[in-house]
């Protein structure tokens, strides 16, 4: 069977043929399956946002193909419409897209464009608001009266309400305080667990993504330079640092211990793993 999402040799060049020509993506291959939670990391300008805008046919590849269920996303206007509701994309700072008079109407905008009937829309709005932890009382307020974090949730709910098979989030926690960040992350994880959908999550923070992604793809200068499970990716501390990414603190500590000659395993990225490894060492030492 064809994978849920498959990208082959994707290249994107902005403003081709002008003095501002810029190659943002180069020969990118990528596959996503149902149920995966994929983290996308990479430094500023590495092409992450450009990449995800291809997944729901917002950007047309300069060359290469994007396949959803084995079928091209760009084949016809109907197909594009279908793809946009199946791949839900939450942009960076999505609160700037809110426009309706009430939060309820704003969350309903996507489902309404899908021409669903009224009861269905209402049900989805409530469900989506619940997923992002938005109090039902807030639904009848103007979106412009919400706090920054609440606006962010409302905007994410607007995409979740379309019940996409793949939910793509572009730095959903940018500019929030640590508490707001934790809450949004918790909501997204809960959403992922409940609907068993696919989540693609762009972030700058290794620390965050390491904890919950089932897979990581590392972007550097328009290419995917690493793609694998977190334990595998975090074995390459030096390479990650060379391309300007900071590895989780605990990974760094373990790498330093190893450099000092302590035989701790590579690819550790959570406190628990580190604790187990160190206790294991201690235990081993006592036995000897």
């Amino acid at each position, binding site marked *: 069977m064809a994978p849920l999402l498959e990208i082959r040799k994707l290249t994107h060049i902005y403003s081709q043929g002008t003095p501002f020509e810029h190659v943002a993506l180069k020969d990118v291959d990528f596959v996503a399956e149902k149920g995966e939670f994929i983290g996308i990391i990479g430094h500023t300008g590495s092409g992450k946002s450009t990449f995800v805008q291809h997944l729901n046919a917002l950007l047309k590849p300069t060359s290469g193909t994007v396949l959803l269920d084995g079928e091209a996303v760009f084949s016809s206007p109907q197909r594009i419409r279908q793809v946009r509701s199946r791949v839900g994309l939450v*942009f960076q700072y999505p609160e700037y897209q809110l426009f309706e008079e009430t939060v309820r109407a704003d969350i309903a905008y996507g489902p309404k464009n899908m021409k669903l009937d009224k009861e269905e829309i209402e049900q989805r709005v409530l469900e989506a608001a619940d997923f992002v932890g938005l109090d039902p009382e807030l639904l009848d307020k103007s979106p412009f009266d919400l706090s920054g974090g609440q606006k962010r949730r409302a905007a994410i709910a607007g995409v979740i309400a*379309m019940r996409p098979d793949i939910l793509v989030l572009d730095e959903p926690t940018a500019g929030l305080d640590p508490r707001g960040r934790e809450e949004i992350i918790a909501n997204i994880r809960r959403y992922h667990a409940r609907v068993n959908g696919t989540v693609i999550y762009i972030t700058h923070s290794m620390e965050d993504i390491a904890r919950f992604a089932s897979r990581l793809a590392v972007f550097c200068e328009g290419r995917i330079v690493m793609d694998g499970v977190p334990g595998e990716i975090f074995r390459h501390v030096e390479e990650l640092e060379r391309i300007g990414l900071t590895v989780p603190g605990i990974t760094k500590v373990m790498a330093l211990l190893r450099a000092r000659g302590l035989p701790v395993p590579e690819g550790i990225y959570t406190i628990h793993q580190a604790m187990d490894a160190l206790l294991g060492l201690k235990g081993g030492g006592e036995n000897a």
Partner: protein
Amino acid sequence: MLKDITLGQYFPGDTLVHRLDPRTKLVMTILYIVVLFLAKGPISYLAVFLFLAISIGVSRIRLKTILSGLKPILILILITAILNLLYNRGETVLLRFWRITITLEGVFTALTMALRIVMLIAGTLLLTYTTSPLQLTDGLEQLLNPLKKIHVPVHELSMMMSIALRFIPTLIEETDKIMNAQKARGAEFDTGNLIQKAKAMLPLLVPLFISAFRRADELATAMESRCYHGGEGRTKLKVLTMERRDWITLIVGLLMLALVIALRRLGL
């Protein structure tokens, strides 16, 4: 994409044309337009054309860029040419069919009119392509400075203009972003009848206005917190100075004007 619009865009460079004082370039553009409208015969046109071609050559702006800047007015040029072709009452009939007569004089005026528009736009494009918006408003402010005596708020006007120019690309980028965000939620901006299309603009316009007001507010605060209080006693970071190359360029411009006036007298 909206971003690819080139009309009025600045292409940084370090050529003689780029380095000229913006006031020189503004005056030269005005001279150029006057000369273009004074030109009558083929020799004068040739002279003006050579002047334009040399300026473009020196500025190293690619011909392709100029041509793509001309694209938006192609329709205007065609309509002007066709109207001139059809409504010219000349003597030498070339072609006559149905109720249409095409004369040699008609063909000639149609061509010169088209050429005139093309050269007019190409000349002004060269100005905006080689002069940053900031330099342009700075130059304009300096040129209009004498008007302060009759209480024209020259500084305020030019500040408004430079802020507006500065934010055009930002707003275009923002429009692109919001459009994409709404498209991701299933919005369609180019289908349906006129009313549906107008309604579809709402999700774009509301966020755009809000962000424009927010930006204006932030900018005003930022300017005030740096003690901006109008043009009174404000000094410039980059003081405009007329160099020798500016004076020489202006002299060339005046010679050009004299030449075309002379040619006009001679009917060339």
